[in-house]
């Protein structure tokens, strides 16, 4: 296996691991961690593919912006989780029960 294939597989693994965490973990903070993994998988991909098209630095710059987006998401997310914790005294979304289908 060449380096590139290996790195692409690593990215796919990171993404799947992140998605698995998002789907199985109950705590909102853990879900945020999973999302970070998914975003880092994309960063790995972007930098890897930039090496195959070395004429521009588009991929690397995109990776920088993805890091920026991840930081903003974490900041907003933790603010929202804190607010919800203030009302429900838990950060497990499954235990929030005000909003659901009522038929």
């Amino acid at each position, binding site marked *: 296996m060449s380096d590139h294939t290996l790195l*692409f597989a690593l*990215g796919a693994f990171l*993404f799947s691991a*992140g*998605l698995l965490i*998002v789907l199985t973990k109950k705590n*909102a903070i853990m*879900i*945020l961690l999973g*999302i970070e993994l*998914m*975003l880092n*998988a*994309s*960063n790995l*991909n*972007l930098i*890897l*593919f930039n090496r*195959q*098209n070395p004429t*521009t630095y*588009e*991929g690397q*710059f*995109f990776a920088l*912006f*993805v890091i920026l*987006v991840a930081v*903003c*998401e974490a900041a*907003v*997310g933790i*603010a*929202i*989780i804190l*607010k*919800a914790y*203030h*009302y*429900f005294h838990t950060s497990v*979304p499954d235990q*929030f029960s*005000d*909003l*659901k*289908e*009522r*038929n």
Partner: protein
Amino acid sequence: MNDPLQHIFESVSLLIPEVIITASLIITILLGLILKTNKHVILKTLALASYGLAIFIVLHHLPTTSTLLFGGMIRIDEFSSYFKFLFLTGGILGVWISGPQKENSSAEYFLLFHAVILGSCLLASSMNFIMVILSLELISLSSYLLTGFGFNKKSAEGSLKYFLFGTVATACMIYGISIIYGIAGTLDFSSELFLKNLIALSSPLLLIAGLFTLAGFLFKITAVPFHLWAPDVYESAPTPVVAFISVVPKLAGIAVLTKFTLAIHLFGQSGYNWQVILSVISLLSILIGNLSAIAQTNPKRMLAYSSVAQSGFLLVGLVAFGMDGIHFMLFYSTVFLVMNFLVFNALNQFENSYGELGIQSLAGLGTLSIIPSLAILIGFVSLTGLPPTAGFTAKLFIFGSLWGAYQQSGELILLVLFVIGLLNTVISLFFYLKIPYYLFIKEKKETANSIKSDVAGNLLSLILVIVLFYLFISPDKLMGWINKITFVL
């Protein structure tokens, strides 16, 4: 382009609407810190004035030929200008119906409105995946926070759910884009290189990457299967915010989805039939949205499902994959903006007087509050798609274009979509007419107070109703304007 600095200055001079909104955003922050009294009134006036000025500039001072700015990141053309006009109008209507904020948070509230509009304007004109992600995130993050502005238990829950669903969708989308970048070798989805490389390598990887990317856009426009957040968010967020986020981010998503699907469709040379994929999504959105809406007892939850169905109808215009379809989609977007705000404005008036409402508790209020009730009736008739309102005209146009596309391509799925779409008009009658039925025909149980008089809200209802009737009687004026828009990827 020799001098990068010169190029940037030239680009900024063509982005005046966005610059105005950014300036207004900064002034809002400063005024929020300085002002002690009358904060809400002053900031509301500032927001309305800046949106009005931006609309004026969009309509009169932008070049009609398409111009690339910032080294190909953004393109100004008639298509994006029309969407900017819609976003700014949506902004004006949303700010208009916003009541005073609790806990002295007016500045943050209007700040987030500005941010959503700024993001939408940039999204509609972006031509590069970096720009798409950045502006999409600007919209998303601001709308997560706006959802929490009810400052109660429900609102916090809705906001958290919206955030969790939204970030996962974004993460999937960024991963999809990273693979598309690997295949295409460029992030500029209008370039020759993008087209050439995607045609050359048509592997299943492209299909997966395309679907991942599509997920992010479909989440923004609340299409099935990414609609699960909508009912919770619509129920929990303050009504003016719901009215706003059910229109502006959705239309922004439609704008960028149009560009993306046309890019990945590769002028029909793609190995995968994106027309069929979009038809199925549109079909499911219409069907699941309408069927789920029937059982709802909360008016805002019902409107959430109705909005899922409406995005299905908006997608029908895109499915036709032609200039006609896009024109009729623009017309439908305009009408959708008007009728959605009409309904939410009236609902907001009811909520201001009676607090949180179920559909049953509206019984017999029709005669006590005649203007909002009539507004709701006309809004729902238009959402169903019956004459004599513009909703009928819009549906007629959009299904006309679908029929044309079917005759051209002969795809069976288009015919199925056509039939199901028309049948759904009947299904939607059941739940759209439920609220007017309770308002006018059901007897009220106890004596209720009459509604608080709200001149600004009534005036807005009147204007929107006139627009709906006007667009039914003579749609050709607006269509004439829209038909001048040429859209080249």
